[in-house]
């Protein structure tokens, strides 16, 4: 049991307690901060944005504009590894004869991979049933907050199709690249 301090000791007691709390707290702070610094490291890591990848050639895309899925195989940094690995996938379709349109397969709703289904006449998300037209427009009853994420693409003189691959934050009406 603690005894009541004499009135003159109040300040002394307060000082002692404050010091004990401060010293005791500081003891935990050093390891905790050291750990926290490392824990927060991912915030400094940036996504490999705007990776240019050659996905196919124009002539292997159906002339009727049916989208075809291609994996994106690119140099990828994963913590300590740097390797050529599949990092995602795109749908590419031919438009106006010799131009292409490309979409990230990731559903902007929650991040599952959409699948083009001829019978549904569009890209269907197997998770929450978002549906997008071949041009990437979402249908009215889709839970997705925005259209399918289009990607910059180009057809080069020799017919090669290049896509600038990016991922975007899901669940938002605005298309914001993961950075």
């Amino acid at each position: 049991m603690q005894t009541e301090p004499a009135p003159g000791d109040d300040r002394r007691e307060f000082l002692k307690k404050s010091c004990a709390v401060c010293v005791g707290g500081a003891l935990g702070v050093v390891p905790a901060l050291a750990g926290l610094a490392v824990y927060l490291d991912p915030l400094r890591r940036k996504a490999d944005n705007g990776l240019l990848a050659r996905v196919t050639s124009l002539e292997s895309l159906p002339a009727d504009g049916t989208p075809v899925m291609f994996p994106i195989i690119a140099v990828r940094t994963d913590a300590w590894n740097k390797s050529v690995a599949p990092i995602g996938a795109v749908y590419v379709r031919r438009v106006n004869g010799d131009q292409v349109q490309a979409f990230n397969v990731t559903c902007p709703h929650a991040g599952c991979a959409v699948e083009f289904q001829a019978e549904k006449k569009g890209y269907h998300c197997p998770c929450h049933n978002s549906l997008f037209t071949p041009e990437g427009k979402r249908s009215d009853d889709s839970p997705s907050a925005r259209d399918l994420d289009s990607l910059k693409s180009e057809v080069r003189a020799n017919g090669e199709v290049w896509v600038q691959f990016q991922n975007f934050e899901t669940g938002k009406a605005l298309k914001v690249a993961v950075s």
Partner: protein
Amino acid sequence: MISSRMKPLLDWIDSRTGYRKLTQEVLYENIPGGARWRYVWGSTLTFAFSIQVITGIFLWMAYSASAQTAWESVFYIQFEMAGGWFLRGLHHYTAQVMTILLALHLLQVLIDGAYKAPREFNFWSGLLLLQLTLALSLTGYLLPWDQKGYWATKVATNIVSIVPFIGPDLQKLVVGGPDYGHHTLTRFLALHAGVLPGLIIALIGGHIYFFRRHGIHAKQPLKKPDAKFWPDQVLADAIACLGVLFTVVVLTLITRGAELAAPADAASQFSAARPEWYFLFLFELLKYFPGESEIIGAIVLPGAAVGFMFLMPYLGQWKLGHRFNLAFVFGGLAGAGLLTWMAMKQDRNDPNFQRALRDSHHQAARVIELAKAPSGIPIAGAAALLREDPYIQGPKLFAKHCASCHRHGGHDGEGNPVKDPQSAADLKGFASREWLAGLLDPAKVDSLHYFGGTKFKDGKMVKWVKKNADEPKEQEQLKKIIAAVSAEAQLKSQRDADARDIAIIKQGVELARGDVACTDCHAFGKPDPDAIAPDLTGYGSRAWLVRFIGNPAHADFYGKRNDRMPLFAEKQILDAKTIGILADWLRGEWYEPAKLTGK
């Protein structure tokens, strides 16, 4: 008596540790109205948690958390290590059973009114334990790094990003970077095996302490005289725990342990992604909050429901409040049950989902077969095994790049019909004796199966076959030539026939070069600059097929007369490796586990 001799020793230990008082408190807790079955749930949960700690630690000893080794180490546990499947099965099914026990415990506490004052802290620590246990499930689901866990967990971590302001940063911290990778696994493992169990153990300590402080909340009316915790209630608890263990063991044995889907692959389309069944209602709920209202279904509603439960002890002070609490929890459970049922019903009736599920099982079975092969899993990981496997990738490549003109056994290679009309040969069994026999059959050569859809429909070959292949004598000769040309392919399926018919094949080569004069148009056995038709040297072999697919317009093949076939390598439509996979598949060359022979 030994005990009398032991007494001084025990006295000494007691004087130093006070164990007698502790045992007294732990074991001889009074239970008003005697032991009852309705009090067993807390004990069964503690028991289930200890199963998880024990099995988890042993799994941990064999698990390796990185994107290259997670699936591989779980594969090794499941299929190679002695009893690994059983250990993993126990861990998997105990997690499932724990969820049910949590619900039962919560219901019992609510119905009996055991959550009311003075047991608020008891109830709150219980609610925290419930959430921590669900967090254990969520983090554990990803650790095998298979397609199922990978894609389902992606949905969960993507939801983090919709938290206002800090969402994207928060997501980065959860995932360990801008994208899934090594650090996702290291972090999830640290949570799953370190942080969460540590918190749970601390909270269980608190939970039991609070529980003992206020004693058991006896269900009125008391039906029997009071009893002690030991042995009456302990016996009931032990029997209930036995029931839990029995259930888990039976589930493990029936299913031969937990499922392991194909290794995670960021570039593959995995359409069978679903969370564990007890999270399905949250998954389903997302369908009803379109656009940016997603946050309501994903975070606000579940958060509010759990938040409200923390207030229940206050509300429960009034009779009406208690009834409201009960209605709230039963209503919530019924709603969750309904959503789960709706999600399951939709999946059951969705042919695309069912196809994706079949595909998932098919790929898992195949990659496990490949991983078990003598060549084993390469350092790069098991995903590469699947990506480079002709048996899995061949049909997909064929469907994508060939099937708009060609067929394979009448379909697109994957077993689906094709909407474009067939306009090139059916390549199933290409270069085999049966396939060549059809080509040299006057009734078939200009059918869609061979040249019928191409510009060679009335070409020299068709004309030659129509004119010459009818006579019985010619047919005898052609049989030998077929054997000779087909032998060039060195097909695995014809290895025995090729070895047996060496003499016939030799005669066939002679005939092709001599009497029957195939070499008027084709080169066969030696280069022929004047040849105008595809080279028969090595016809259908891997090297021949790779070159042909790469450039059918090469002088060795159709030259300038090439119909519509794309120059796959020349035009860089496919890389060499992919063409090799396609060629292997067309030739039936892929790894097959040795059949068990003998009886």
